[in-house]
């Protein structure tokens, strides 16, 4: 008996292993390990990334420099989006933690953090674009430089969105209390 296209698509989904993982998560239900705060790593990353953006925005010639040291710095800079995304795995908004494991408190924490992050990124976008245009006019940037700078700016906003959300969730999160000693029920 030949399978329909939909059945074949189901087979492909099953082949990925995700349905089994979701079933296991649903069986396990709540009782997931406590969320971890990540207060300092995103802050350090934010400072470094912001510094790099300012460095390239004030001196676009660095993009085309053939100096070996500059090439190394550019390579490291290119790795930062990956590092920032990886850092979210160590924070309270860990993407590996499925929504099946999240309870109402975790959902509220995530919503607040993402809302905060959206405001920060939106505000910076509103303020940053006119500044970028002004700098481009003052320094008479070529269209290629403008494109590179806009790309860098978008990449920065992408990283900022993740970092701001993790920072907000981590700093607004009270210390974990997973012990019962207080009432003698350990």
């Amino acid at each position, binding site marked *: 008996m030949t399978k329909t296209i939909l059945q074949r698509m189901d087979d492909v989904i099953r082949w990925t292993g995700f349905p089994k993982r979701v079933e296991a998560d649903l069986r396990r239900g709540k009782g997931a390990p406590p969320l971890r705060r990540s207060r300092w790593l995103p802050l350090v990353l934010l400072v470094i990334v912001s510094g790099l953006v300012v460095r390239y925005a004030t001196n676009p010639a660095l993009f085309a420099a053939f100096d070996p040291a500059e090439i190394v710095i550019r390579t490291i800079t290119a790795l930062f989006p990956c590092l920032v995304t990886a850092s979210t795995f160590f924070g309270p908004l860990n993407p590996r933690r499925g929504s099946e494991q999240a309870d109402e408190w975790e959902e509220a924490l995530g919503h607040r953090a993402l809302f905060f992050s959206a405001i920060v990124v939106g505000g910076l976008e509103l303020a940053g674009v006119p500044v970028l245009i002004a700098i481009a006019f003052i320094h008479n940037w070529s269209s290629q430089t403008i494109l590179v700078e806009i790309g860098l700016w978008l990449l920065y906003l992408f990283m900022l969105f993740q970092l701001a959300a993790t920072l907000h969730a981590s700093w607004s999160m009270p210390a*974990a209390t*997973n012990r019962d000693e207080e009432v003698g029920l350990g």
Partner: protein
Amino acid sequence: MHNRIAIFRAEHGISRAKLADAVGVNPQTIGYLERGDYTPSLELALKIARHFGVNVELLFSLERFEPIAVTLRRND
């Protein structure tokens, strides 16, 4: 919002993990509730009250609960 979850939990001799499992949240959330770091949804408050078999007003209050000793003395 004030609550007496810790007292009721101690009286029933159940851990945070067991209460969390019974009402469908993570144990960490019960900890935050007990410390007053989090105000629960109406649904969660009702589930916790139902688990202990009491009215929600006995567990949660907008005003600070009076000490149990005072309540007992008044009832004597």
